[in-house]
Each structure stands twice: as structure tokens, then as C-alpha cells.
């Protein structure tokens, strides 16, 4: 029994580390990497294992048991808030009307836009979106980029709610903030240990990218303000989830099915890509 006491435990772990190092050197040599690269990989893996030897810092959850409760409560509160937003949000009262209309067009029940409150909310949410997207492209640390992206995705969901697209706002929060972002953070955690940790570009590259993107932004804004859109005078009412679903299953049935097939193929492909090689 290798876990009999601490000395045996350490000996066992040391032997495991030695085996892992030998295996990795052999493997990297076989894959055609250079000696230096193999040595760097070995250093990184040794560092990884030595980190794993330290006792895990898990005192925090025991000191604050209330935090543990909060962690389980969070998704529940989030789902309740989402449900409230979808059911009673702007433009949602046309659900009943659309059901009685029995057509694929949403019922005309309310006109949300207009007023100072909407303008204030728009400027608040748009400011948050712009600041957080700038934070994404300025931040050097990849984890900070992910956190700024979280703020940006949340404020874009609020923009959808301001545009009376309640279902899209909820889907944005569920799929992007709940799924894609967690996936990205898992990817960051799985790939963060690297011998080459400096990812900073040259100043010349930064300057070139800033000039190109700034010129594109100025050009886009100039083109936008110079264009007159037809049909801007009338303001559309909010669309309901029922009408959206009805349209999705009638007119957009083929893309809907194709998207389902695509999701299955992607699931199989991602599982195949992330598979451990034996």
C-alpha cells in the first residue's frame, strides 16, 4: 500500500514524476521536437507535478460556509431572473395576443421605445459594452480578457432586451455567458502552463492594428451617419417567443434541422478532438 505514511507517499509520487518525465522525453523525441523543446516541456511538467504536490488551499470554503450556500444559490437566482425577464420583460405581453391571432406575426400590443428612460438605459448599457470590449482588447492577461468578455456579453444581452428581443437576450446569457465562456475558461486553464508565457506583440504590430481598426471604425461611423434608412419612422412592437418559435418551425424549418445535425456533428468532432490518445 503506497499511501501507508508520508514517506512512502512521497517516494511513490517521486517515482511517478520520474516515470512521467521519462515518458515525455521519449514521446517528444519520437515526435521530432528538438532537444531544447523536450527539455522545456520536461521542466514545465516537473513544475506541474511539484505544484500538485502542495496541499490544496481549500480552507476558504470551510471558513465561510455561507459562500458555499451562495454558490449553489447563484444558478437558481439567475434562472428565476431570466424567467422573469422573458415573461414580463418589454414586448412580452404580446405572447397572449400572438396566441389568439394564430398567425406567425406577433401581436401589436405595445410600443416600448421612446422616452428619456430608454435613452438613459441605452447610454448606460452601450457605455458598458464599449468599455468592456476595449478592456478585452487592451488586457494582456488572458484571464482578464475572459472576464472583460463576460461583462461585454452580459451588456450585449441587455442591449438585446432594450431592442425587445427577450428570447435572444436570454439565449445570449445562457449560451454565451453560461456555455461558451465557461468553455473558453476551461481552455485557458488547460493550456495555461507553457514554457513560453510571453505573448506580447511588437509595438509596430500594435500600431498597425490600431491604425487599421481606427480607420475602419471611423469609416463605418461615417458611412452609418451618412445613410438614410427607409422605414425608420415607424417603430416595431416587440416580438413574442411564441411567434418566434412558430416561424422557426414553419419557414425556417430546414435551417433549424440543419443546425441540429451540425450540432451533433460538432459534438462528435469535439469529443474526437479532445480524446486522449492511447
Amino acid at each position: 500500500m503506497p499511501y501507508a505514511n508520508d514517506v512512502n507517499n512521497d517516494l511513490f509520487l517521486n517515482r511517478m514524476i520520474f516515470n512521467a518525465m521519462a515518458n515525455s522525453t521519449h514521446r517528444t523525441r519520437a515526435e521530432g521536437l528538438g532537444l531544447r523543446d523536450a527539455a522545456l516541456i520536461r521542466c514545465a511538467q516537473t513544475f506541474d507535478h511539484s505544484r500538485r504536490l502542495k496541499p490544496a488551499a481549500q480552507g476558504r470554503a470551510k471558513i465561510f460556509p455561507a459562500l458555499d450556500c451562495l454558490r449553489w444559490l447563484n444558478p437558481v437566482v439567475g434562472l428565476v431572473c431570466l424567467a422573469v425577464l422573458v415573461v414580463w420583460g418589454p414586448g412580452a405581453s404580446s405572447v397572449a395576443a400572438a396566441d389568439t391571432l394564430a398567425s406567425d406575426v406577433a401581436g401589436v400590443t405595445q410600443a416600448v421605445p421612446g422616452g428619456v428612460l430608454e435613452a438613459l438605459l441605452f447610454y448606460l448599457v452601450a457605455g458598458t459594452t464599449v468599455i468592456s470590449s476595449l478592456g478585452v482588447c487592451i488586457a494582456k492577461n488572458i484571464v482578464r480578457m475572459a472576464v472583460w468578455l463576460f461583462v461585454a456579453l452580459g451588456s450585449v444581452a441587455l442591449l438585446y432586451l432594450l431592442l425587445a428581443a427577450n428570447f435572444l437576450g436570454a439565449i445570449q446569457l445562457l449560451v454565451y455567458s453560461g456555455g461558451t465562456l465557461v468553455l473558453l475558461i476551461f481552455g485557458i486553464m488547460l493550456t495555461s502552463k507553457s514554457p513560453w508565457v510571453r505573448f506580447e506583440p511588437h509595438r509596430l504590430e500594435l500600431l498597425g492594428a490600431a491604425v487599421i481598426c481606427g480607420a475602419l471604425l471611423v469609416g463605418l461611423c461615417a458611412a452609418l451617419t451618412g445613410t438614410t434608412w427607409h422605414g425608420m419612422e415607424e417603430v416595431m412592437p416587440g416580438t413574442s417567443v411564441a411567434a418566434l418559435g412558430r416561424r422557426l418551425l414553419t419557414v425556417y424549418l430546414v435551417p433549424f434541422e440543419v443546425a441540429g445535425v451540425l450540432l451533433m456533428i460538432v459534438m462528435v468532432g469535439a469529443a474526437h478532438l479532445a480524446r486522449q490518445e492511447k
Partner: protein
Amino acid sequence: MATISLNHYLIVGAVLFCTGLFTMMTKRNAIGILIGVELVLNSVNVNLIAFDRYLGPNRMDGQLMALFVIVLAAAEAALAVGICINLYKNVATVDVDRATSLRG
């Protein structure tokens, strides 16, 4: 300025697009580039939903296209993270400048 027009939303979308493009151009980390792609896809979605709200007379085409864009973005992110993890397994880094094994 009290009434929010279509152009306001389109300008927000343009800012999102340009910051996403800047992120894609300047980051070396493969997952950083992926984050830039997500920003660009979000800008497209903001534009689609704003056009649907202000110009599309009750047809919901913009919202449905945005829905499909979200589905495709989720699929793309899953595959791209899988590719990043494989890249890390093979090259021991996610620096895209070091993935040069296909260079002739």
C-alpha cells in the same frame, strides 16, 4: 438625443467589431484570438437584431438569423477549444506563432 435610433445601435456594433478585430490581430494566444472572434460575432448579432427592430416590419428574420449565428458560434467555440487543447498537447504552447510545423 433622447430618442434612440438605429444608428446608435449600429455604432455600438461597429465598436464591438473593431475591438474584436484588434484583439484578433494583436493577440498571440490562440484562445485570445477566439475571444476576438466572439466579439465580432456579437457585433454582427447586435446589427441583425437592431435592423430587425427598426427596419424589418414584424418578420423576425433578423432575430432568427441572430439565433443561428449564436448556434454556429457555440459550435465553433467548442471545436476551436478542442483544437487549442490538441495544439497544446503537440507543441506545448498555444502561441500561434510557434505552430509552424506545416511551414514548408
